[in-house]
Each structure stands twice: as C-alpha cells, then as structure tokens.
C-alpha cells in the first residue's frame, strides 16, 4: 500500500483516529508521518536492532573502475570479474587487492581483518599476532567495562601465548 500523502513510498505507519465518534484510518510512509508530527519512534525499533548486525548494502557497482592486466595465474580479466561478480582464483585477492579491498570494506561495514576460525594446518606467526591483538583489545574492553573476572581470564590467555 502506498502512502496516502505522497503516494510514492510504501505506507508503514497505520493510524486509526477517532474524532467525535468517527473512525478514520490513515496510511502514511515514515517521512510523511514525521512531517505530520506523528511520533513514529514508539513503534518497533527493529532498525536499531538490525543495524549492529548488518551492513548497508552498496549499490550495484563494478569492482574495477578501469581495465587492468589479467591475473597471471588464472588469466581472468577485470572486465569478466565486473560482469559476473565472481573472481577467478584465490590469488586474485592478492593481485587485485586494491580494488577488492574497497568493495570488501563497503560490504563488510568496515570489518577489515578476519578474527574467526583458522584452519589448523595454516596456523602460523601471523595468526598468533592477530589473535594476540584481538585478545588485547578484548582485555581493554573488559577493563573499561569493569568485567574483572573476564579480564583475568584474558590476561592468562595472553601470557600463555606470549
């Protein structure tokens, strides 16, 4: 259902007003309702809830603005990557890192460094450094939030690795 006021956006606010015993239904979009001075914040704060979890979606855009040389490993061209939105081989992440990092940044809402599972057979010095950095950050957070039991636990873990 479209907004009764602007007739453009989807109506998300549904009001039933009773004046002088007369019942009147109004269907408005959020911006028109706000212009009308109707408080919309009392409704479900789902936006807030979801915001933390989900990144805003970047508009459909090309990975590469201009053409560059194909990947020497799999020969995929930047044009083909733009068309199918899929890479040719794992090495592409290295070879086209500059353009890819921009896209990843946008999709991942600023998440830059992997901090999840690491395959056991690929666990090395870099992994350890990253893990250590993550633990130290968690420790600082625990201290500022006065979660001292967690902090002690984290400190033990850090000294164990070091």
């Amino acid at each position, binding site marked *: 259902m479209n907004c009764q006021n602007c007739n453009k956006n*989807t*109506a*998300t606010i*549904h009001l039933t007003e009773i004046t002088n015993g007369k019942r009147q239904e109004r269907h408005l979009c959020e911006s028109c309702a706000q212009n009308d001075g109707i408080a919309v914040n009392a*409704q*479900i704060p*789902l*936006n807030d*809830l*979801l*915001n*933390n*979890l*989900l*990144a*805003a*979606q970047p508009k459909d855009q090309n*990975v590469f603005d201009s053409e560059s040389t194909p990947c020497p490993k*799999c020969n*995929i061209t930047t044009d083909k990557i733009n068309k*199918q*939105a*899929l*890479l*040719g*081989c*794992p090495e592409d*992440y290295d070879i086209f890192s500059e353009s*890819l990092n921009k*896209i*990843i940044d946008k*999709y*991942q*809402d*600023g*998440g*830059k*460094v*992997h*901090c*999840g*599972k*690491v*395959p*056991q*057979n*690929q666990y*090395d010095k*870099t*992994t350890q450094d*990253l893990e250590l950095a993550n633990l130290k950050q968690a420790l600082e957070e625990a201290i500022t939030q006065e979660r001292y039991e967690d902090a002690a636990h984290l400190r033990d873990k850090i000294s164990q690795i070091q």
Partner: protein
Amino acid sequence: MNIDNIGTKVSKWFQDSGESPQVIISSRIRLARNISNHRFTAHCDHQEKNAIISELKMAILQTSIGPLAQYIDIATASQLQKELLIERHLISKHLCRNRGPRGAIISEDEAFTAMLNEEDHLRMQVILPGLRLDQCWDVVNRIDTEIENQVRFAFDQRLGYLTACPTNVGTGIRVSLMLHLPALKMTKQIEKLLNATKEMKLAVRGLFGEGTDALGDFFQISNQITLGIKEEDIIAKLTQKLIPKIVEYELVAREHLLRHENSLLEDKIYRARGILENAYLINSKEALFLLSNLRLGINLGKIKDIDIATINELFMLTQPAHLQKNAGGSLTPNERDELRAKIIRNKLSTHKI
C-alpha cells in the same frame, strides 16, 4: 539417503519441531570453502571441476558424517530429482542450473548437505528444527575441521577464508533462521520489519513457495557480514539479541489479537481448517496461506487435535515436485491442485491426535 526414495516422506530432521517452535521453524548454518590450489568453480574447465569433486568427495566421506551420507551426481540427476532436492532445501537453484561436473553429499537424516562446485568448491550446511544455531555450528564446525585435516583450503591471514564472491570472505558463514510471523503480519507490523531488512539487504525469503509472490507468513533472516566478527559472535548476536526481540514482538502481537480481535482470529483459523479439510482443488499459494493459519491455531491452543509435525509434513509434501513424485509421473496444474487437496484432506482426517 537414497535419491530414489526421497519425496515420499518428510525430511527426518523436520519431523521434530525443536525449541521455541511457536515462532522459529528452523536454524541453518552454511560455510563456504575453496581448495587453495584450484581456480574458483565458475572459471574451471570440466577436468578441474572433476579433480575438485574427487578431492572433496574423498575427504568428506572419510569424516564422521561419511558413513551416514551419500553422494549424488547432480550433472546426471533428472529434472524431477533436482527439483525434489531444491524443495527439500538440500541443494540450491544455483547448483541445479550450473553446468559441468557438480554434486551433493547428503546425510541420511538430511540435516547435513555439502554442495560441490556450486559458487564455491564446497558449501556445506546443517539445518535443524527450532532454535538450534549452537548445535548447527557444533556439527558443521566439527566436520569442517575434519575436512581441513585432509584438504588445504584457500585462506589468508588477513581476509580469512577466500571465496569466489568477495562479499563472503572471512568466516564464509551464513547463519539463517526461518520464522513464522503471522501475528506481526496481521497487525501490519511486518512491513516495518520487511522495510528494515530490505534496506539492509537481509535475505528475506519464504521457506516454501519460493519464487512466488506469496511469502506466506514465513520469513528467513540471515547475517550478511562475514569479516571482522567471530562465528560464535554472529550466532550469539542473532540468538541472544535479535531473535528474542522478534519472537517477543510476535508473541505480544498474538496476545493482542487474542484479547482484542478474537473472533477475527478464530474465523481465520477455523475457516482455514474448514477449507483444508473439504476442498477438492487447492493451489500451492492457497495451501501455504491456509496451513500457516492452521499452524497459528495450533500454536495458540485453539486446535488441539492436529500437531505441528503434521503441518510441517504437509508444507513439504504438497510442493509441485513432491506431488509429481507421489503421482509417479508429470501432472497438469489442475491435476496437481487436485492431488494436493486430496493429500491434505487425507492427512488431516487420519492424523488427528
């Protein structure tokens, strides 16, 4: 799991309704993985695709899930077999449409599936009834680790698991929950949820009747961010923060309807039951809509002689490919509607508790 027998019964995992069954239908976790020294599937020739399949097949069949699972060659499967697997959420449309060597390894209870040569070399999922994301993660993580002992996955210390599409890098995880939200829809609050999720490109899809306009009252919600956050944290955020809120809103809306719109609610529920028990022709959209109302009636305690498992079974078995399998041949749309109505009538009259 035998491919010739699927389609006549509901998936084993789906016979149980799980925890928080009032609102949460199912939990699902999917991991995307690629082998390090191969090109991504879309850029491979047949030979390389075959090499990927044999390496992964051998590794997966040697894990603890191996003895309980079976490999299905999708490249040689019939159209009906592929559609059955799609309707049961065991393979994706993408895998079905892809060309060249590709397959799936499916466990006997259908809770575990590994798709080979989909968008990534390996995409595996665990699906369980109700709110069981922790359990899904335990299982899929364990099998992933077992595979990692034999296969070197494409992995980068900074970017994590490398995927064919750059939007999945990091953990390569997709955590999804299927929700039944009839009261939020009836009280028109669902538009708010839908708008919010659309803006943030949450995957919102129907569990059944995919590809039609009718979402029914079923919604799938899943994470999009995969980099810079731990698997456990993604799961915890959904299970501890977001989902309890949505469940609470749905239950409050149901309570509101019970108190203020009881006759409207009872009319919807008993009208749905009346039609389902007596109709001789019923299309998939109508069946989805009416079964959803019946499910709400059971959840609200208004219908006591039918259980959720029966409804789950009807959702699954009245889909087009399942009907054709049941009939043993192709059906015209009219014949499908007739058979669908017959199955529903029979089930509801014989499966009363």
